[in-house]
């Protein structure tokens, strides 16, 4: 954190009402950044903004954003008080695989929320950042995007698309002063998973995801971060299983 010169840097958080989102906002505010929260749920975002302000004494503005309303993105970016230094997208919709298999609208919503919306928004900021010659883009993707599995391939496919998009963005903008970070959290203990039996060594706390994200984005400037490094190994094994075998596994 010695590297960031506090006071004036601005981070825009997209998807501010999730647990990982709130933990990320806290990590940035505590490191001295100004944070802007963007979310569809205005009451939830205001609750989080009040929390950040109470903890730190710093004002935290809230802006409304629906990640599926892509047509509104240009106006959203234009109306921000200032072009941020960093944009973090933690938007995600796990959905229900069984429902997504039969309900096209539901599957489309999962795809649009996890891929289309976040990718297009970060892509738009990428243009502004490239023009300015600086900026950091962070996309929270998922290990589920590394191989389609029966239990969550609609979500996984959308995350795979998002991961590929971020990779391409990074490749294109590396020489232009724009840093792109992909974060793959693995299992995360959040309020939604409270009490569920998740394997401890593979399960991170939201605050741990936030700390890894902040470090990777602002300190070590990594390209891809697995919050728990063991996941890189797990996914290497999962990717290596030949398809004729993989298709018979219950995953």
């Amino acid at each position: 954190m010695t590297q960031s010169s506090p006071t004036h840097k601005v981070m825009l958080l997209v998807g501010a009402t999730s647990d990982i989102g709130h933990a990320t906002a806290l990590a940035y505010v505590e490191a001295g950044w100004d944070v802007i929260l963007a979310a569809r749920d205005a009451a939830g975002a205001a609750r989080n903004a009040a929390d950040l302000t109470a903890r730190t004494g710093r004002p935290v503005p809230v802006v409304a954003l629906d990640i599926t309303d892509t047509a509104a993105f240009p106006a959203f970016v234009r109306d921000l008080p200032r072009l941020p230094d960093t944009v973090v997208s933690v938007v995600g919709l796990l959905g229900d695989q069984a429902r997504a298999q039969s309900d096209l609208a539901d599957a489309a919503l999962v795809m649009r929320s996890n891929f289309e919306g976040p990718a297009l928004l970060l892509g738009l900021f990428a243009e502004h950042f490239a023009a300015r010659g600086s900026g950091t883009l962070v996309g929270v993707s998922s290990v589920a995007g590394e191989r389609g599995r029966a239990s969550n391939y609609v979500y996984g496919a959308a995350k795979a698309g998002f991961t590929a998009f971020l990779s391409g963005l990074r490749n294109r903008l590396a020489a232009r002063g724009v840093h792109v970070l992909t974060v793959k959290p693995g299992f995360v203990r959040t309020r939604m998973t409270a009490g569920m039996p998740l394997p401890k060594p593979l399960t991170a706390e939201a605050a741990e995801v936030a700390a890894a994200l902040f470090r990777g984005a602002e300190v070590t400037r990594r390209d891809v971060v697995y919050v728990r490094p063991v996941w890189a190994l797990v996914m290497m094994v999962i990717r290596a299983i030949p398809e004729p075998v993989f298709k018979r596994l219950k995953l």
Partner: protein
Amino acid sequence: MSTQELAGWGRTPRRATRLLAVRAPGDVAPIHRAETGFIARGNGRAYGDAALGCTTTLALRGLDRMIAFDPETGHLAVEAGVLLADIVDAFLPRGFFPAVVPGTRFVTVGGAIAADVHGKNHHGAGGFGAHLRDLTLALPDGTARTCEPGSDLFAATIGGMGLTGTILRATLILRRIETGWIRQRTIAAPDLDAALAALEAADRSTYAVAWIDGLARGSAQGRALIYRGEHATLADLADLAPDAPHLPPARRGALTVPFDLPALTLNRWSVGAFNALYYARGRAGAGPDRLVGWAPYFFPLDGIRDWNRIYGAGGFLQHQCVIPKARSRDALAAILDRVSHAAPSFLAVLKLLGPGGGLMSFPLPGYTLALDFPANPANRALLDSLDAIVRAAGGRLYLAKDARQSRDTFEAGYGAAATRFRALRREIDADGRIASALSRRLGL
């Protein structure tokens, strides 16, 4: 929505309950309207069965947002699932500290209110509930009600074990501090009389607590180390440690108990040897004031994660009683007699309490003694015999620690207050609807 086995910090008893996660304050009212036989649960640090719902348990940790802070008054409004650890982290650097903290900072504000937790300053400051400006409760029918000191509902909720409704938020009055250090003085007391006298003499200290050797017998029975403490001022710091930072550096790498230790690890010899060494070291260090960081002073066990596993997979029982002052000495001696001949208690803490704040608050003017034992049939019988001593001396047990006291012991300790508490529960229609394994066991 899932049904699962839950336990308290002592890991016994275990009860199957439906666990409903509360993610936002608005989630609580619909649960109240739809469910019956439910109780709120914070961070699961009550030792026994206080936070195990009869049918349903509300997981309140999702209400972990702070709401507003006024640096002029030190008033901090928070949701009920905020941990005291979060408050210390955010406000110690800003010169504020909770007015009362128990022995762990990993409790929620809602849990601290429900148990009216006490700290090392109870003799002067009262309990956690004495430092609230207001609290907001979801009544049994789901209606949110804000109440303030002076009202019956407020008094019944302080120490009411969550049985008057689900605590949603509260406004705490934080105390100002200049540094994160405690100026500590250690006094070695060679026996029980000396220990009680030293605690009595320490009643003008802000903080005072004693570690007591539960295994010492004969003339050494009740030997203790008394720790008096004051928040160190900037002047103290300049005096005692001019080069120290205002905030003690964060401790790295907390130790963890990675698995259940075999039940034999803590036996009369290992605990006895530890106690002898600990007392000798403390006596050698007695005397002049020294500076101790806030974390090791207030929360020594927080430095060891999952320390509840040292008692083995069967869990453990804590026996914490308070005995009215006039009868403390003899009752404590009788308890120590039993314990030193029966089972080693790894933890033994003695402290002087003042009057209780809430209707059902545990404290009364007298001495409180806390002892830990592995949960096994022999120790359960031992604890029953300790209860008899407590009853005869007019004392009572701390509900936040209790997993096994009988209704008779409870009635003897809380009788009149419990009668009024039951009446208030009937009035607000909480009777039967808001219920924990503890309330059912004790007939509350």
